[in-house]
């Protein structure tokens, strides 16, 4: 049994631009609560999420990377003990062209029922995705997620 959520948003952009927005620090800093992702986006590579001051919030490993279609990340929180002790989660990002938009599907799963980690990230993702969509469609992210 597992806890899981599936979030979907349609963004007027190209899969390549969306891929860059999801993987490059100059973009993530703008719409993802100011975080930087440190990773070379190859299967087996380490993955790290941190604030500008170097604090690591989450870390893990790239399970799959198929540019510009799919990223699977083995993901664990690092700074809250009760989330860290729940262990590894799996986050899949799928990018799929639909007419003149790209459908972005985020699926985040953990092998646990009543997961505090899933509860925590499920609250953050809608704001991140709305801001990402606004940034790609208008050129500026939503101010509340900078």
């Amino acid at each position, binding site marked *: 049994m597992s806890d899981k959520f599936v979030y*979907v948003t349609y963004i007027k952009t190209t899969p390549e631009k969306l891929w860059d927005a999801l993987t490059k620090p100059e973009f993530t800093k703008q719409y993802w609560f100011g975080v930087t992702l440190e990773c070379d986006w190859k299967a087996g590579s380490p993955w790290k999420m941190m604030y500008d001051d170097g604090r690591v919030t989450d870390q893990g490993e790239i399970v799959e990377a198929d540019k510009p279609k799919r990223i699977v990340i083995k993901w664990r929180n690092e700074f809250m003990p009760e989330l860290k002790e729940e262990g590894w989660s799996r986050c899949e990002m799928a990018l799929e062209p639909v007419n003149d938009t790209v459908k972005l599907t985020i699926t985040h799963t953990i092998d646990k029922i009543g997961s505090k980690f899933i509860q925590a990230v499920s609250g953050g993702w*809608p704001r991140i995705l709305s801001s990402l*969509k606004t940034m790609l469609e208008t050129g500026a992210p939503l*101010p*509340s997620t900078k």
Partner: protein
Amino acid sequence: MDAVFKALADESRRHLLDRLHHKNAQTLGELCEGLSMSRQAVTKHLGILEGAGVVVTKRQGREKLHFINPVPINEIAERWIGKFERARLAALSDLKRKLEREDK
């Protein structure tokens, strides 16, 4: 955005969303349990919710699971509520700046 408002403008559909909010990833059968609505009516309502993007479905083995997707609803919140939050955040950072200046 019209589709989201239409989808939310019905008590039965909001009730289905509440059920998914309470427990995510349910089959049609689970969602029908304890409801006075027919299975057919639930299917129709879920279709409208899915069309508006506030519910997404995923196949898992032989089952089709329904998930609540809050992203379109969040966009509505950001459009009308976000700017009030911005003012609050700006006020807080002004206050912080002022207090820090007084420290010096």
